[in-house]
């Protein structure tokens, strides 16, 4: 029963240069009533994925506030994770006909983990559906249980949702990333936006020489406009639609297109999409299709910073944090009005939204023709992220939630 040890010690004061010393001081003041009170976060993996990435930063920041935050990970066999993966896809609306044995497997592993984990903190935060059933061991009336749902529940498979809802309704509160992703629940539902870390390798400032070196490595011309979409090679990210939009823009501007995403070698569908992307690129040397290593934050950062315009032309999207990453770098963004994107891209204020290939192309042309407007959108986008989508805001929301639930104020 060993808690996850986060990789680094992170000093909250390092963020003062980004958000201001006053904000840091207020985080410390908000944390004071929580000193000596324990928080336990539970999820299903210590490495890989957005939740682990976020916990790897939130836990050390909370510890820097001298708060007692602990992070535990449940264990499970292949059968358990096969079931939870199927649940995950079904909650996103994929077809799935669960068998009674699937539910038994889910329950069995909850029981096994109940004996491994303390779950006795004043505030227990369960992330996503995998550890949801741990609430079975809840001592009556002693602590506060919160379910943090990172996925979109707007169109779930009803059988799977009914099963999971029998657990959810026993929690004290729930957290969703967007009102659109929430369900009608008998417990309070709070809105916590996902967040980026401005000091992480993916978002921190980079030396101009490094950015130039990355561009040279991928044979991207820094003197001509660069349009970039960073995303997996996934049909829902519509890379073929991005190429079509680029071809329309290319009639008016001598631009380049960068489509960069993780390697598709272990993802059969991704490999197929990548093949289709190469086919659509049709040997155009100004279309750079980059298969980045699984973890290449500095390269992603450099490509975003070098871009003239960042595109996120998704057909469906979760929250789409790559948008916030681009906005943080003061980049003008043209994105689809799907999922959590309109929360980040407020049309005409912090970026431009589009609903089609043609619309995407038009907005890109508009911004390339009006660089001052593009720069202003980028500036405001940066402020929007600073105010709403930084990890320090996420920490503040957790502190506020615990203060509200714990009646300390």
């Amino acid at each position: 029963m060993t808690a996850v040890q986060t990789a680094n010690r992170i000093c909250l004061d390092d963020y003062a240069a980004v958000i201001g010393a006053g904000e840091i001081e207020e985080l410390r003041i908000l944390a004071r009533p929580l000193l000596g009170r324990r928080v336990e976060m539970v999820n299903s993996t210590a490495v890989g994925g957005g939740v682990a990435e976020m916990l790897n930063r939130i836990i050390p920041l909370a510890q820097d506030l001298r708060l007692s935050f602990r992070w535990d990970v449940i264990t499970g066999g292949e059968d358990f994770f096969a079931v939870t993966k199927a649940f995950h896809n079904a909650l996103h609306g994929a077809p799935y006909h669960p068998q009674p044995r699937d539910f038994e497997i889910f329950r069995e592993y909850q029981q096994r983990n109940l004996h491994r984990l303390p779950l006795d903190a004043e505030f227990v935060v369960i992330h996503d559906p995998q550890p949801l059933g741990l609430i079975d061991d809840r001592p009556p009336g002693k602590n506060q249980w919160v379910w943090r749902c990172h996925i979109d529940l707007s169109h779930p498979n009803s059988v799977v949702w009914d099963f999971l809802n029998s657990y959810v309704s026993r929690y004290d509160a729930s957290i969703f990333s967007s009102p659109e992703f929430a369900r009608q629940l008998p417990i309070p539902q709070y809105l916590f936006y996902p967040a980026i870390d401005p000091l992480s390798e993916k978002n921190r400032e980079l030396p101009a020489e490094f950015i130039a070196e990355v561009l040279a490595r991928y044979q991207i011309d820094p003197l001509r406009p660069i349009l970039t979409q960073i995303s997996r090679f996934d049909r829902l990210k519509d890379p073929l639609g991005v190429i079509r939009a680029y071809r329309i823009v290319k009639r008016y501007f001598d631009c380049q297109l960068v489509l960069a995403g993780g390697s598709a070698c272990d993802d059969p569908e991704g490999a197929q999409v990548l093949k289709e992307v190469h086919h659509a690129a049709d040997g155009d040397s100004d279309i750079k299709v980059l298969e980045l290593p699984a973890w290449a934050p500095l390269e992603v950062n450099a490509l975003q910073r070098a871009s003239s315009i960042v595109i996120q032309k998704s057909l469906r999207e979760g929250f789409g944090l790559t948008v916030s990453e681009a906005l943080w770098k003061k980049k003008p963004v043209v994105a689809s009005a799907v999922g959590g994107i309109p929360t980040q891209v407020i049309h005409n204020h912090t970026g431009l939204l589009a609903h089609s290939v043609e619309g995407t192309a038009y907005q890109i042309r508009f911004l390339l023709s009006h660089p001052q407007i593009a720069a202003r959108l980028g500036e405001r986008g940066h402020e929007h992220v600073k105010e709403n989508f930084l990890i320090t805001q996420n920490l503040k929301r957790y502190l506020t939630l615990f203060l509200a639930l714990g009646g300390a104020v």
Partner: protein
Amino acid sequence: METPQTPFNFFTVSYLTRIGNISAMTLSEFRAGLEHCSDASIFHHTFQTLSTHHFLTEGFSNDFAQWVLADANRDALAEQLAALDIRDYSSIAALRADLCMVVRDFCEQHPEFANQSTLEPFFFCESIEVTVPLGRAAKTLDEFREGVSHLSHSSFYFHFISSRLRLQLRTNDFSHWLADGLGLMTLAENVNRIDVYTNTLDSAREKLLRLVDRERRKHDGSADREPHLSR
């Protein structure tokens, strides 16, 4: 300048956003939502949005107007909703009544638009407020200036914008104390005139500090003539 009987106590505020159970896909549903949502919801989408979107100083007034513009595509209604200035309201009930009236009048005048589907739904949310004292207080104009200059956005917002509802007056915490505590009526009035819609929180604070500095210079210049002046 008078000596205040009570110091100005600085607070900070943090908000949780609670997702409500009301949403709207048409202007008719939106009108019903405005009528039935909680006071905390009206507050969230009008007062609180000035904090979370304070950096937008052109054409963004409140969440309702933005949704009507971007998702219902009804520019005239959006303009009317955006024109409602929260500084004119000292109660949520009065603000809600005017919001409802504007939408009701539009739906009655344009019944053809009332039940058209919007691009995206509007989700009524509400703000849960947690306030904590900062442990700092000001008894003089100098201390007040020092305190204001170090406030976070949320703290500045709490005292300058959301305080209007708490005080139930058409003023803010700063102006209230400057007038009642220090007797600086003109300064209080000038601070209260700073436009929260066309300024960011940062630029509003800069203007406030400039007004305070001007007042301090005035008293510095007359210090010899007014030796009793409290600083």
